[in-house]
């Protein structure tokens, strides 16, 4: 523990009660290997305050929450609640300290009732008395102004209500600080509104909220202050009044590139569209989920990048192009077929390749690399009988070309690193380049070297004749590859960049 923390006066010092912050973080640091994910993070939050937390990928928000939740143990620093140092080195410790994190993936028991879920954290009895549970729960719900029936199964509620139940559960069990991790990403505007009404009610009763959000309007409407993080440090904490998107992005990015790899200020001149054949076209398409009024054209041999923050709906667009997500209204034509009517199997046969964001769902991890590489185009590799020697040859070729380091063709894919798994997946579509290749988050979570390799592989697929939709939440990836770049925010395309000079910063501003 750094000495400057240890030498600070202890919490028993005499202080006016009102001045004691509800939550105080002092000098929190966390390293992974040689990389600092959190550097000396110090923050004070008042009781009843809603503090927004803003920052781009890798700013340290996730690590900070994990530290608060006891999922990660910081290398240095302390957490205090109401002036008393608490132990957040384990999930249990964090719970006892009164800190709750509501993640995007809710941790509710869908088939159990609201009452059972609500009380699951606070009841310690061998036998459950259903009637008294429901009664107790109903009282709690009333005091919270939460209008749901305690006896219905949680999964039958709307997502926003489920979130409120989860927050409610946290409050029941004595939470003082609730962290909301991008709570509205899956919510409709009206659901989001309800949720924030609930949040403001709870905060007026003294509960402190940390709201992680990508969205300026959400932050301005619902938070008192916003803390901006960058590269593991707290850049500044500012009141939300008068905040602009440019100012926020500026704070989050800093004056200059902090180090190689951000690319937020790397500029690229996008080519002038040539206007050839159109491979896929969406016309005011509403998709199942959040995407509304989508207009999109992908020309032959073109790389269209669709940039947006996680959960903005860009991944839904990728799924829809592969026929795996329903088009509710409007039209989406892919290679001359109605995407929804055709479905994945027929679109695949028509020449659509799809690399899903969850790469593990597209790889057979226990199978050797060569089988994963040849999966989509075995006919091409082995016109008649399966000949493993052919497959090995093709696979070795890709291992060299894409730099899948230290791998042999027979190695199980599951033993590779994430970046190399992604390369295997892209190799699959290089064996026989499809007419349209849809890639969702192909570079997520990769180091710079692997990312460069993957970007090269994608360009190669284009050179071999594929038109490409590149869906990404990394601005630098979109800037590096897109011939045309669309930005998406809450399911709506906010800007189209073409035939102009663009920086990652511009994309960030377009979705803030």
């Amino acid at each position: 523990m750094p000495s400057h923390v240890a030498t600070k006066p202890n919490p028993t010092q005499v202080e006016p009660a009102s001045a004691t912050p509800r939550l105080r973080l002092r000098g929190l640091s966390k390293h992974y290997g040689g990389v600092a994910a959190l550097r000396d993070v110090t923050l004070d939050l008042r009781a009843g305050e809603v503090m927004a937390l803003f920052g781009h990928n890798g700013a340290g928000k996730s690590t900070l929450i994990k530290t608060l939740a006891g999922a990660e143990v910081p290398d240095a620093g302390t957490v205090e609640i109401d002036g008393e140092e608490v132990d957040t080195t384990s999930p249990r410790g964090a719970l006892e300290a009164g800190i709750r994190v509501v993640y995007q993936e809710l941790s509710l028991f869908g088939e159990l009732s609201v009452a059972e879920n609500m009380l699951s954290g606070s009841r310690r009895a061998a036998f459950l008395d259903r009637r008294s549970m429901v009664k107790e729960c109903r009282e709690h719900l009333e005091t919270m102004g939460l209008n749901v029936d305690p006896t219905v199964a949680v999964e039958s509620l709307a997502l926003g209500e489920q979130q409120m139940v989860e927050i409610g559960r946290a409050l029941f069990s004595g939470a003082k600080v609730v962290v909301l991790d991008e709570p509205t990403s899956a919510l409709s505007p009206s659901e989001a509104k309800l949720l924030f009404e609930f949040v403001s009610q709870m905060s007026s009763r003294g509960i402190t909220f940390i709201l992680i959000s990508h969205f300026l309007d959400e932050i301005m409407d619902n938070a008192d202050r916003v803390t901006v993080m960058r590269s593991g440090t707290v850049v500044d904490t500012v009141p939300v009044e008068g905040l602009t998107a440019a100012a926020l992005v500026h704070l989050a990015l800093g004056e200059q590139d902090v180090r190689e790899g951000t690319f937020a200020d790397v500029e690229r001149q996008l080519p002038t569209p040539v206007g050839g054949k159109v491979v896929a076209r969406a016309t005011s398409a509403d998709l199942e989920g959040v995407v509304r009024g989508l207009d999109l054209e992908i020309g032959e041999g073109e790389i269209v990048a669709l940039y947006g923050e996680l959960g903005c709906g860009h991944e839904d667009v990728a799924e829809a192009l592969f026929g795996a997500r329903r088009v509710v209204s409007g039209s989406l034509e892919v290679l001359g077929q109605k995407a929804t009517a055709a479905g994945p199997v027929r679109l695949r046969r028509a020449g659509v390749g799809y690399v899903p964001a969850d790469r593990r769902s597209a790889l057979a991890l226990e199978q050797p690399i060569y089988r994963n590489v040849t999966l989509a185009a075995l006919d091409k590799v082995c016109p008649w009988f399966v000949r493993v020697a052919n497959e090995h040859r093709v696979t070795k070729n890709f291992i060299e070309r894409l730099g899948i380091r230290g791998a042999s063709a027979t190695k199980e894919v599951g033993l590779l690193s994430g970046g190399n798994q992604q390369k295997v997946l892209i190799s699959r579509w290089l064996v026989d380049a499809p007419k349209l290749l849809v890639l969702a988050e192909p570079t997520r979570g990769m180091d710079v070297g692997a990312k460069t390799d993957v970007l090269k592989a994608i360009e190669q697929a284009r050179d071999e004749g594929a038109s490409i939709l590149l869906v990404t939440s990394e601005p630098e990836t979109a800037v590096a590859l897109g011939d045309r770049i669309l930005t998406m925010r809450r399911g709506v395309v906010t800007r189209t960049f073409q035939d102009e000079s663009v920086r990652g910063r511009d994309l960030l501003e377009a979705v803030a």
Partner: protein
Amino acid sequence: MSAPSMTRTTPNIKYWMAARARILGPLFALVVLLVVFTAMAPTTFLTGANLTNLLTQVSVLAVMAVGLTMVLLLGEIDLSVANLSSFAGVACATFFSGNAFGLFLFGEGKLAPGIEWIAIFGPVALGMLMGWVSSLMINKAGIPSFVATLAVFEIASGWALYWSQGNTLYDIPGAVKWMGSGSLGPIPVIALVAAVILLVAHLVLQRTKFGRSIYMVGANRRAAELSGVPVQKVMRNVFVLSGGLAAFAGVLNVGRLGSAQAELGNDLLLPAIAAVVLGGTSLFGGVGGMGYTVIGLLIYGVLDNGLDQLDIDIFLKPFIRGVFLILALLLNVLAMRIARRASEFSPEASAPTPKAPEEPPLVGAAA
């Protein structure tokens, strides 16, 4: 964030073992059993006559296990195989005898007596039909194969009773008798038939796109779908094959025993599953094959036959067999553990350390 370590590939014994642990474990079990029984019953176990006997005993099981292996490779299960084999035996004798057989609500059917090819291929076709019914339930209604094939299991056993009326049927075609109990020189024909089927199935699995797609569907169904593999078609074909092979096993069984009964092969289900799993084919799909199944069959056969050679209480036999099965399965698990550990020594395996940040600064997943 550092790039993955780039140690060079050094093929060593551990790596070699790792790649083959799945087969080495069962092989080791088989060798141990052979040694144990040879030592305990030196005069009776390792004789030509007994080994021939062993092969005959295991052959019916082998044919059944071929289809079952494919089903397990898909990550599914077919519980109907044993009862289908019993039914096929009854159907074989019924067709050959020329006796009337009930057609449920549609009166009776009757064939001219003595048509061998109908007596052989008719039951096989019915077995395939039942497999197709299973696949329909699985594919179209989304019923788990465990339950779907349980229904077919019941139908098959009921159908066998319905046609045999509980009688033992003795009209078995000559060709079936020859296949079941004839021999070519010292080698029983039934073992040759089983060997040919195993070999063909092996080639299908390893050398055809259909075979490959079985592995890939079993390994990751979604990945196969995303890559354009016609998953439902593969499922259908495998269950049809499994039904057909189970029926053919039933025909061989009546050829071996010289008569058909409604419950003749019913107790073969668990041995068949045990043999496939003992060989090392995974119940979760994607891993295994005919080579594994051959070894599993031999383990089961040697265990079953070897215990007969020992001077022990006959009623204790299943108990001891169970104990041996546990030991053999534990050996498989151990082999897998060794494989896993050895693979950690292989290059590139140490990709992301468990504690790696999900959000490496600047290049990670979204916070």
